[in-house]
């Protein structure tokens, strides 16, 4: 962390002391041997105003010019990366201004979406995004945490390495391919599950979340796919967090005669629940903006239903489906404003999760180093 501060004095002092060399062009391929005498040069005679670099570097060693150029160039790259967030916010806000001017912020909370008749309520999409994310997280979070516990605490090292590699590969699979798999494998499975609920003699279909006709596509299928997508993120962060729990914590638990599960449940998990919360936030941020897979299995019907089996629509999928077919500039602007919602929520969630994990990393690193 302290790298950049320590190297600067070293880089400055030897250069200017050397006798002025013949001015070379901007970026010569400076060989090592050519510069070695500089380092051996007599100790710095305070040859006064050395600071104003800009006035001196043309005559002096060409490394200066090249260094400055290099520094500016890489700095520009870094500024471009940081500026991307600002550019994103500015353009998304600018793009949604026509929509906000036309129907105001409040109109977003109406359930009616009908661009051909200038109705731009987004409530059904907000609901769809929230509901599918909730389903996804309710599956992925326990699954991810339990798997992480198994990997870190129970399974032998070699096997847990294989499993975590497999789950990380899952993260590399593009969402459109998971959607393809969803259409042809997951949806039929979900449908047969729904049919069995529908036909069950216990009357399960009267429970609100199981009501409706079994179609396969809908909130449940989308939620399952989202769970699969969030799992790698939750698992890898939780695993890191569990690995950070100091060994002394475990030793203390076992010394008190705890069984392995008691050590996990009473000592290890409580130590890391904040990190697990951060993992959940990260997973949620991924899930909210997920587009392709959800679009392929959710049914794309703007409606608000509590049933897991009903089809729905999410913010991201309405953008994906309707953007190129938007009937007017206003409709495009309304879709961009939905994108703005996604942008703001994902920035906030990611920032919160990262801050939390950074804070934790700082807090828990000390016992680990003491070990």
């Amino acid at each position: 962390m302290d790298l950049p501060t320590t190297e600067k004095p070293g880089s400055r002092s030897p250069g200017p002391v050397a006798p002025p060399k013949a001015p070379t062009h901007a970026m010569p391929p400076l060989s090592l041997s050519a510069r070695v005498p500089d380092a051996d040069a007599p100790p710095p005679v305070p040859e006064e105003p050395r600071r104003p670099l800009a006035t001196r570097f043309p005559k002096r060693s060409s490394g200066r010019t090249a260094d400055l150029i290099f520094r500016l160039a890489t700095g520009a790259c870094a500024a471009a990366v940081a500026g991307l967030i600002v550019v994103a916010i500015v353009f998304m806000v600018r793009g949604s201004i026509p929509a906000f001017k036309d129907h105001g912020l409040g109109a977003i909370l109406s359930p009616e979406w009908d661009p051909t008749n200038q109705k731009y309520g987004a409530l059904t999409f907000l609901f769809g995004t929230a509901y599918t994310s909730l389903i996804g997280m309710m599956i992925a979070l326990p699954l991810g945490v339990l798997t992480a516990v198994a990997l870190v605490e129970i399974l032998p090292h070699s096997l847990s390495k294989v499993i975590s590699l497999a789950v990380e590969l899952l993260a590399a699979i593009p969402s459109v391919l998971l959607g393809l798999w969803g259409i042809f494998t997951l949806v039929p499975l979900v449908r047969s599950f729904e049919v069995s609920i529908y036909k069950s003699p216990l009357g399960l279909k009267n429970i609100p979340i199981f009501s409706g006709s079994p179609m396969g596509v809908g909130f449940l299928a989308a939620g399952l796919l989202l769970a699969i997508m969030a799992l790698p993120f939750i698992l890898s962060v939780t695993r890191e967090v569990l690995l950070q729990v100091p060994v002394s914590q475990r030793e203390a638990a076992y010394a008190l005669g705890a069984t392995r599960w008691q050590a996990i449940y009473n000592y290890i998990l409580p130590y890391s629940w904040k990190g697990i919360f951060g993992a959940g936030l990260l997973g949620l941020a991924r899930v909210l903006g997920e587009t392709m897979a959800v679009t392929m299995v959710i049914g794309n019907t703007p409606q608000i239903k509590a049933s897991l089996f009903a089809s729905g629509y999410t913010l991201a999928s309405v953008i994906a489906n309707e953007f190129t077919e938007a009937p007017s500039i206003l409709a495009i602007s309304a879709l961009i404003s939905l994108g703005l919602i996604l942008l703001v929520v994902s920035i906030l969630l990611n920032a919160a999760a990262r801050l939390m994990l950074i804070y934790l990393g700082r807090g828990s690193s000390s016992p680990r180093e003491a070990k």
Partner: protein
Amino acid sequence: MNRGHVYRKILGRIMEGVCLVAAVIAVLPLFTFLWHLFAQGFSSLSFSMFTQLPMPPGELGGGMKNAILGSVLVVGLATVVGIPVGIGAAIFMTEFAGPTIASALRFACDVLSGIPSIVMGLLAYQIVVVPMHHFSAVSGSVALAFIMLPVVVITTQEMLYLVPHSLREAGHALGIPTWRIASSIILRAAAPGVLTGMILSVSRIAGETAPMLFTAFGNPYLSLDPKSPISTLPHMIFNYAISPYDDWHRLAWGGALLLVLGILGATLLSRFILWWHQRSLNT
């Protein structure tokens, strides 16, 4: 006392069993996915997929030549812009910026990498498509470059941090200018890691579909003009997957297999490079 002892032992066994079941469930999706992909994909993978253009539904044959070439073009353009800028930013973070600025930049990259890809597509639409008045391969590349940039920066920066500080000091002691130290010593020492980061970021954007919908837009004909609409492989898989035709479904699986072989191959290759590099460092 004794009963409590038995109880907690049994509870422990049960809960450990639950954790193991969870681990099995966690790997299940990958294996069922790969199983279906290989079962469906290999039968539809054929030579004509690489050489033919898409056919209307119902006609036999047809391939994805335009989409494969389109993907290469769009991803290639994005890479040409994204990787140098990303590496430059990472060098700035490790070699020039103070700790505060470096961690602020890192934070910005973390946040950026979490922005949904469809939002990046909307951004590229507004920055490139609107001024140009039509969809184009370039706009798709811009969206992909936005997506890959934070990934490149994060992976490169982590690899540059791993280079021992003594190498930098040695360079300064020899009086080598900083730019030479960064480019010839630090970057070279970290080269395998940086290469890994490049491969990972390329494989991440190769499968992006959402931003392609309203930037590259798709094109049933062969086009290699960066200024005109173009088809990409993931986008075409999407179109074929949601179509009602069995022929197209088969082609979609074939394309999917191609894409996965590329991405998984690249991921495994990058892991191998890293593993090999670390082994050679240790010996």
